[in-house]
């Protein structure tokens, strides 16, 4: 397979179609428009492919819930304010155990905010976002190649756990072009018994989120919780970069992690031994993996394009075993590697 130069938004679309996504519904919003546009153009070229530009974000999420119940691989996408609108639908999909992919190309918030890259939706993504006791698996790519790879694995994870999966990237990742090689997707493993395929196709099935009997509902909640426990155990993914001799470790994901890598290169040229811990799954957060690192490295700096959200998860993971500093640029501001390097250098030798 050849290397091609594509924008992040287009890569998600292409990877989804290759992974067998046959139903996409979406409503335009910058900076993810190119994904909707790509699906509009390319979904019609694959057999059984359905593209719908819905009348709203709420309609889109409910359309993919329906198509998912019917057994299709489904996806919707939006950017921060639009993702807020989808939350009720995501909660319903989690309740009904419907697989589906939700792409959030984050922009500055809160409110309508702006259209610049940001990471302010971490809490919303990793804490469920909608109402009720549920979780979504959250994947955070940091390069266009990873956008392609993780989009494909998102579909596998969604089917495996029958749960919505969110791809959390930002405006920079969506707009940027980088070379990508599309890998061969794995064949789909998803039992027909979960699909609604009309009368005469097996036993009748209930797919519903309304459970009026509290005991039934409690049992359903515990069932979901047991599933989330399995996910938490099996699926955390992360990347370590120049950890071996590190005196200090930066924790960052997505675009922030790229900037951190640039900063680390500069710092190492000046003799400062800094490494990077990059969560690839934000939920489940690679908690035990980070805690294990605390046996070796005692100083951390969390860097996010927000006022400090993943910071909470890092604190929970490190449980007071190490010192944690924070640097954030919220609201759509993107710092340079040089700026971050200065911030890190300032706290590198600091003793509390």
């Amino acid at each position, binding site marked *: 397979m050849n*290397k091609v130069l594509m924008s992040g938004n287009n890569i998600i679309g292409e990877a989804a179609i290759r992974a067998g996504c046959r139903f996409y519904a979406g409503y335009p919003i*910058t900076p993810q428009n190119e994904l909707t546009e790509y699906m509009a153009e390319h979904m019609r070229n694959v057999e059984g492919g359905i593209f719908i530009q819905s009348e709203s974000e709420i309609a889109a999420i409910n359309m993919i819930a329906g198509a998912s119940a019917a057994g299709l691989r489904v996806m919707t996408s939006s950017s921060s304010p639009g993702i807020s609108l989808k939350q009720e639908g995501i909660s319903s999909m989690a309740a009904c155990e419907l697989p589906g992919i939700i792409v959030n190309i984050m922009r500055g918030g809160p409110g309508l905010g702006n259209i610049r890259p940001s990471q302010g939706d971490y809490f919303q993504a990793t804490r469920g976002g909608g109402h009720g006791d549920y979780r979504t698996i959250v994947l955070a790519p940091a390069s266009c190649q990873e956008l392609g790879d993780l989009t494909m694995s998102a579909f596998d994870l969604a089917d495996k756990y029958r749960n919505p999966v969110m791809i959390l990237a930002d405006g*920079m990742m969506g707009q940027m072009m*980088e070379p990508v090689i599309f890998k061969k997707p794995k064949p789909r493993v998803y039992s027909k018994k979960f699909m609604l395929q009309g009368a005469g196709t097996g036993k009748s099935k209930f797919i519903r989120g309304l459970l009026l009997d509290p005991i039934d509902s409690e049992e359903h909640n515990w069932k979901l919780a047991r599933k989330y426990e399995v996910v938490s155990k099996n699926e955390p993914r992360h990347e370590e970069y120049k950890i071996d001799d590190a005196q200090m470790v930066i924790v960052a994901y997505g675009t922030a992690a790229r*900037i951190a890598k640039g900063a680390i290169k500069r710092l190492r040229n000046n003799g400062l031994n800094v490494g990077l811990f990059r969560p690839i799954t934000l939920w489940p957060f690679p908690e035990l993996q980070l805690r294990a690192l605390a046996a070796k490295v005692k100083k951390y700096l969390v860097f996010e394009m927000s006022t400090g959200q993943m910071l909470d998860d890092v604190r929970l993971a490190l449980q007071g075993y190490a010192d944690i500093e924070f640097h954030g640029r919220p609201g759509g501001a*993107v710092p*340079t590697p040089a700026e971050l390097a200065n911030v890190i250098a300032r706290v590198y030798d600091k003793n509390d």
Partner: protein
Amino acid sequence: MLVKTIFSGFGGQGVLMMGVSLANSGMNEGYHVTYLPAYGAEMRGGTANCTIAIGDEEIASPVASEPNYLVVMNSPSLFTFQNKVTSGGTIFLNSSIINDRPNRRDVKVVCIPCADIAQELGNIKVANIIMMGAYIKISGVVSPDIYLKSLESIMGSKKKSLAEINRKAFAAGFDYVKD
């Protein structure tokens, strides 16, 4: 090696095309590349710009706070970006329509009357490729052959005659720059 370039001009001047073609040829040379367009409420006749990073290592940030090269196709772009260029860097400007000159003395300035050359060639649309000829000759980021091949493969689905005029335009820009 890490080379960052900002291309800027009016929407419609082929500014983003310059960036895409350079990024593609960087990729085909085997380098790491990123292409980042300015995005938002853009329109024809408005401003457009993009940033290309080409390096032999993974590229950390696709943003250029201090680009090595700046290519400006109109005056507003010159004023917006001239002070960003790193000391010792190079500014390429479309001297057919930009009467102003950079007020910095620590950067090299290359003036290419690309709109005039394009008109001589009989197609104003290739002004951007003429500029690319000059840019590739001076920067040497990628080889001219790879650039032309990459350009052809991007334009692939379009008319064959385009390939020929693009080649001519590229050569005109390339040769305009004296060694």
